[in-house]
């Protein structure tokens, strides 16, 4: 007993050095800025009637749009989950990939895709305009509809994944038994299937709500400045109004709300563990008329809803539909590579001081720095978390905390705390690392944990030296997880928008920041360049995702 206590004490001590780097980083990059924001909130100038009124108004709208988006997402997501877990049909893998890809795309790309399709200058509007010269026939979706559509587009994958997993883990014999006990199909659904799915539907709804609640890029770019959520209002108050106390107050409201939802979510997930089928029920071909109609209709709907925006973006980036700004003379409509060529030109009076292509180099540079930094911090933390002692049980939620906080708030914290270093471009990779670190740790941790000690012992008894054990056992298993972690960090950095928009220097924009600036400027050329930039970002992200998919490690990337 003494010995075991001694060894456990030693094990307890041994993880401390592993924590030094990650904790130092988190303290300076997260907890200290968070403390400054909280401090700012408590100052007397915060709580005046005007601030409280606008906070209440913004918070209400944030809740409203998130709840509505969540409802719509469930409405499309639950039937889709049934489709993917119960039925086999041609092109299933492709359709599934099509539906899942948006979730992994940067918000800016999704927003750009929706403007390119149904935005005021999108394909749909221009097509209508050319079809009916009378504009009264034309259908222009309001920005609010655009926001809801983008949120549904973004998050259906979550519902499909969580509810779909629950559906295919559902023991089909439970339904068979209920049938044999006298329940008709409706009662089977009401008494067996629905109660068993309820926790996972609720979990999916909470997670979708969380994403919609803290959605920033979609609302900023599609909302046309007339719709403001907590996130966008923090940005406006910081950058346009310089009302930092109000921004801080909104940040705290946002943080408290997301934390409450996150806690609810993780409690739900931990209780949600019953009824795992011995083998998942195999999907089958739709075998009666009703099932065939259901499959066909839903497949068509999903194909249209998901393929169109994703295709519209690259298409629009190669198509001239309107006059560029200041252009005289005849306009050539149709195919063009101008928008891409323009990215290399350093024009006077343009949005940048450098050719826009510079943004791509900046993004790649920041992303590489983020990869290095987050691996450097993520590996020790992941190793320490594999065999949790009391220390790890306290630190684990702390490490994950930045995941629940809004990126705009992280940016705000950087501005308040490290304002005098804002001139340095090196603040950006630190902010990106903060966002990427939880993902990197969650990608590495299960892989490290999955190497049982027995495996190393077996290798040792077979004659492998400690180095050979590490080389032949640990490394091959971790290599794939490391690649996944690298890609997470890389794509997160590429697509990070909220924090970057606040702290990036005007002369060092990233791709998402450049897209935002192009979209906020008038003229067809700027719009086209935004589309071109977004297309490039989409391509970069999709390539990275494909890399991860090829090397997917079981359980990696479960959050």
């Amino acid at each position, binding site marked *: 007993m003494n010995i075991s206590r001694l060894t456990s004490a030693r094990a307890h001590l041994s993880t401390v050095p592993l924590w030094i780097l990650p904790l130092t980083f988190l303290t300076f990059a997260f907890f200290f800025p968070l403390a400054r924001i909280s401090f700012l909130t408590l100052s007397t100038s915060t709580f005046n009637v005007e601030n409280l009124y606008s906070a209440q108004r913004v918070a209400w709208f944030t809740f409203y749009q998130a709840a509505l988006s969540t409802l719509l997402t469930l409405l499309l997501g639950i039937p889709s989950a049934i489709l993917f877990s119960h039925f086999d049909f041609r092109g299933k893998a492709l359709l599934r990939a099509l539906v899942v890809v948006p979730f992994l795309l940067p918000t800016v790309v999704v927003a750009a895709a929706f403007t390119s399709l149904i935005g005021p200058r999108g394909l749909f509007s221009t097509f209508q305009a050319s079809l009916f010269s009378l504009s009264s026939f034309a259908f222009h979706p309001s920005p609010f509809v655009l926001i809801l559509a983008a949120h549904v587009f973004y998050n259906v994958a979550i519902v499909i994944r969580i509810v779909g997993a629950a559906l295919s883990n559902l*023991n089909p*014999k*439970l339904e*068979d*038994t*209920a*049938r*044999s*006990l*006298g*329940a*008709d199909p409706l*009662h089977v659904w009401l*008494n*067996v299937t629905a*109660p*068993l799915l309820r926790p996972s539907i609720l979990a999916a709804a909470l997670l979708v709500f969380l994403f919609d609640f803290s959605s920033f890029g979609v609302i900023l770019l599609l909302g046309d400045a007339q719709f403001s959520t907590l996130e966008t209002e923090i940005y406006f108050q910081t950058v346009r109004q310089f009302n930092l106390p109000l921004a801080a107050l909104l940040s705290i409201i946002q943080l408290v709300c997301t934390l409450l939802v996150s806690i609810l979510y993780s409690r739900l997930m931990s209780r949600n563990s*019953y*009824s795992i089928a*011995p083998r998942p029920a195999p999907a089958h071909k739709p075998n009666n008329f009703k099932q065939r109609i259901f499959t066909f209709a839903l497949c068509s709907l999903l194909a249209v809803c998901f393929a169109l925006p994703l295709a519209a973006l690259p298409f629009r980036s190669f198509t001239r539909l309107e006059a560029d700004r200041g252009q005289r003379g005849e306009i050539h409509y149709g195919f063009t590579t101008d928008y891409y060529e323009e990215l290399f030109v350093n024009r006077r009076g343009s949005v940048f001081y450098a050719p826009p292509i510079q943004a791509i180099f900046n993004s790649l540079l920041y992303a590489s720095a983020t990869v290095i930094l987050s691996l450097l911090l993520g590996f020790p933390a992941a190793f320490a978390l594999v065999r949790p002692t009391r220390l790890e049980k306290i630190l684990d939620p702390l490490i994950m905390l930045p995941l629940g906080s809004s990126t705009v708030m992280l940016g705000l914290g950087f501005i308040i705390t490290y304002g005098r270093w804002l001139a340095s471009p090196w603040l950006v990779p630190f902010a990106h690392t903060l966002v990427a670190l939880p993902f990197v740790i969650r990608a590495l941790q299960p892989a490290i944990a999955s190497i049982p000690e027995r495996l190393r012992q077996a290798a040792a008894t077979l004659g492998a030296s400690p180095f050979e054990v590490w080389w032949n056992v640990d490394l091959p298993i971790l290599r794939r997880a490391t690649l996944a972690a690298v890609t997470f960090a890389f794509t997160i950095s590429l697509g990070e928008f909220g924090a970057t928009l606040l702290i990036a220097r005007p002369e060092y924009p990233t791709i998402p920041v450049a897209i935002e600036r192009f979209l906020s400027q008038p003229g067809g050329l700027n719009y086209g360049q935004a589309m071109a930039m977004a297309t490039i970002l989409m391509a970069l992200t999709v390539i990275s995702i494909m890399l991860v998919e090829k090397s997917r490690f079981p359980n990696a990337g479960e959050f």
Partner: protein
Amino acid sequence: MRVNSKMSILALTSIAKSYGDKPLLQNISFTLGEGETVCLLGASGSGKSTLLRMIAGLETPDLGTIFFDDFDLASTPPHLRDFGLVFQDYALFPHLSVKDNVAFGLKIRRVGQAEISERTANSLKLVNLEGFEQRNVNDLSGGEQQRVALARALTIRPRLLMFDEPLGALDKTLREGLLNELRSILRRTKIPAIYVTHDQEEAFAIADRVLILHEGSIICEGTPAEVWANPKSAYVAKFLGLGNVIDGVVKWKMQNNEWKVESGIGEFVVQCKHKHSKGEEVCLLARPFVEQSNRWPSRRRASIRLERQKFPAAVSRPEGCDQNTIHGKVADVIFQQDKYKITLDNGLYVYLKDAPKVGRKISVKVKVECLG
């Protein structure tokens, strides 16, 4: 407890089912009498579970009809059949308590609360789980979970009970105990039952009648004793582990119903009612229970002397058994409770009361039958 066919309650006629172009079941016909327990015995993939699901109405046969009480079930959906179903993995509703699981069928039928409580308690009593009503089904042991599943099926007073490898997930001792309980419950309630398993001991223990399924057809049918005594085919003999199956060629007819058969391990004389012709290939079954070991050193080879085996007493001595002696060198000896399983170097095995040393040459007399 054999029931003759005119009292049959369930009848399957020429049932066939295929998946894609793979035929799974073909021309399955059998009946089930009132209060009878029939066991469908077959290896995995023989289609026995699918047959059960078709009787339950969860799948539809491609061909053939299922009658219950002379009523064609084709248009009756599963929830109106009143057939109880018990699965290997219990399939208890994890979101319901023991009581709510057992009461499920009654609640669906909108039975009154008082009656639900009474019938639920009765069912739980029947399976020896009195007082388990409020327990969480996820906290029960495997055996207890299977009892709950049985009670749940019994509560609806089913017209037929179906078991799909119900004891497959349980360990051996638990399985034997539960099997005995199950048998006594079936005897007491007189509910006709179909029991699907791949375990022949289980099947022989519980069944009034055994049907052996192989490659989608019923290849053997009868009471356990009949099937044991007359397996009819090499597959059944091997599947049930009845003894050594030996390939042989008929050499000549010795006298009425007696044939001389040559095989790779020697010549045998077997009795068979079938007509055989010279040169015909036949399968022989050499039961491992020894008729007589040789008491004298063989004139042809020096074999060890073994005590005369009286085991088993019930096996009758076949005619002309002098020729049915197998010889071999002992390759392996395994202790099995009251006997030793002796494997010879030619692959045959026999059971002996005493263990000869490995490497010794022995000759034993065995009963050899023709499998046709």
